């Protein structure tokens, strides 16, 4: 034990040296920047075992945190996994390089439907590889609701005052209000945004809490009747409490996709592509799916699911229920700034 600590201490001291090590060695290496808990660690070990390419792996809490650190430029990342609007932003800033996904051995495992969705932020599917996806909806306790839940309306009509949990994140709150009002969630119309703001301000007294990560647990524990959550969260919630159900409201919602990108400075694009191809392989995709339990775009995995699982809105939303939904793109700076200000106002209210 003591030795270990000493060793760790010694390791720390040598680190500035160790950091340069990679450059002298011919061994191939990839620096991968992923979102938190978004890959089974076994997959990484497996990749290294199969190809001899070592992976330096780092995780970020949010897409914004990742962006900040990536842009600072202290570390030469080869691969990034981030969300839709951030992909768009990175493409626009010229930070990523195009990849020919048709050359992938297992690329065809990704269903056409998801490539189509991805064109919203990556026209022509030139840069990004869909990894996981999902929706934003309502997770609710079937024993506590009176009547069917199929619309955002339940969040705003005061019926469940004090039993509602909203997301403590700007976009995930505004999309709910915008969609409920029938607007596009990518609207740049100030009047529409302000209408959403009025709605949310009026709703605030009814809201029990604005949470991010703990929203699901609060519904599972029975501290709240319903919460706005990501579909993956909903799936997990139902694992713990079978009385819960998840619905994509009929007004439509946000449809999100997290994708892989190869950075423009990638030292070894071939290795990067090899890694992405590896992620598409059925067994690896299956492994990650079982680790993450978000909706997978990998048809090979989807085909292996039971009928019950495939009918699950939280796990595999069918195209119809996504009809009115959009991918959030975080349009222009002025709108973002406006939303920011309004969000602060709402929270401080």
């Amino acid at each position, binding site marked *: 034990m003591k030795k270990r600590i000493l060793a760790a201490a010694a390791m720390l001291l040598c680190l500035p040296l160790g950091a340069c090590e990679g450059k002298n060695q011919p061994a191939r290496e990839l620096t991968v920047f992923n979102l938190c808990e978004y890959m089974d660690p076994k997959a990484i070990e497996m990749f290294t075992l199969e190809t001899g390419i070592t992976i330096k792996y780092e995780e970020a809490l*949010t897409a*914004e*945190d990742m*962006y*900040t650190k990536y842009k600072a430029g202290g570390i030469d990342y080869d691969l990034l996994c981030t969300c839709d609007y951030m992909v768009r932003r990175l493409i626009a800033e010229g930070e990523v390089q195009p990849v020919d996904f048709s050359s992938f051995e297992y690329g065809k495992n990704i269903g056409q439907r998801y490539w189509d969705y991805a064109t919203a932020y990556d026209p022509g599917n030139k840069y990004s590889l869909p990894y996981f996806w999902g929706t934003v909806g309502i997770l609710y306790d079937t024993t506590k609701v009176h009547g069917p839940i199929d619309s955002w309306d339940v969040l705003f009509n005061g019926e469940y005052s004090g039993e509602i949990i909203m997301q*403590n*994140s*700007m976009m995930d709150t505004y999309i709910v209000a915008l969609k409920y009002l029938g607007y596009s969630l990518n609207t740049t119309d100030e009047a529409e945004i302000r209408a959403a703001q009025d709605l949310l301000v009026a709703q605030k007294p009814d*809201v*029990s*809490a*604005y*949470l*991010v990560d*703990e929203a699901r647990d*609060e519904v599972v*524990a*029975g*501290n709240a009747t319903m919460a706005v959550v990501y579909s993956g969260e909903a799936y997990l919630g139902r694992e713990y409490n079978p009385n819960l159900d998840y619905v994509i409201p009929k007004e439509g919602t946000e449809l999100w996709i997290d994708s892989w990108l190869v950075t423009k400075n990638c030292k070894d694009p071939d290795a990067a592509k090899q890694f992405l191809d590896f992620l598409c392989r059925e067994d690896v995709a299956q492994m990650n799916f079982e680790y993450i339990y978000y909706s997978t775009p990998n048809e090979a995995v989807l085909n292996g699911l039971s009928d019950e699982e495939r009918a699950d809105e939280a796990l595999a939303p069918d195209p119809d229920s996504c009809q009115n939904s959009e991918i959030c793109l975080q349009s222009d700076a002025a709108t*973002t*700034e406006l939303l*920011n*200000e309004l*969000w*602060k*106002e709402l*929270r*401080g209210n």
Partner: protein
Amino acid sequence: MDRNRKQRQLLALPYVLWSIAFTVIPLLVIIRYAVTDKDGHFSVSNLLAFSTPVNAKAFLISLEIALICTVICVLLAYPLVMVVRRLRISRMTFMLFFLIMPMWMNFILRMLALQMILSNNGILNMIVTGLGFQPLALANTKAAVIIGVVYDYLPFMMLPIFNTISDIGEDVLEAASDLGASPLSVFFRVILPMSLPGLKSGITIVFVPSMTSFVIADILGGGKIQLIGNIIEQEFTRSTNWNLGSGLSAALMLFMLVGMSFTIKDDILPSHPVKDEEGEKKEAPGGEGISRRAVL
């Protein structure tokens, strides 16, 4: 003497160098962001943004919560430290460990556990209703945030006070009571003034960071309490407006440093803390001006 002093001052040299390299320069980075706009032109608008209604409100709430928490910490810490003295658990190391050990568990885990205790169907309410009382609506309130901050910082208030008080010789306290001081006046005339340096450290360690402890506000306040820390964090992450975030940060820092410089000036006080005002028996207790009671 003077040469001695100079030599002793030199001991701070490594720290001076270290803090220039890793505190002051990064601070300058922040200040550069603070005084420029997005296009890199000089602008004080980010600093002035401190006074917009939203930001000012968050600042005032932070100030309020930090003040309340600091006062509660002080009020809890002193009796505790006195009790520890009384119980003659004279092993200081043991006590230090015992008080700080909960802090060695991860902050987030502790806060989540605290949330489970305070939540509507939580452990506390199970006990409260079990005893036949009305359940408490603590979850997602300011009170919950205050409990969380006090929980997280109490040991940091206690340690410095404990350090200064544990050093006061028993004979000094006996001397005070021998000279006619009741137990209360022993506390207010001897123990409290002698522990002022520790109290000052404690207040700094508690008050300052509790203004920016946005994670506690998010988890225990249900996101309904917006501290200035939440806003700064948001500017740096979600909205990636580093200029504004830096501006708010710098303004906050300026405010606190100005406030702090007053307390630094006040340290002339510890050596002659109280000019005795005759007959002034009852002052409102609280804050640093805790009243000195009349002798029995």
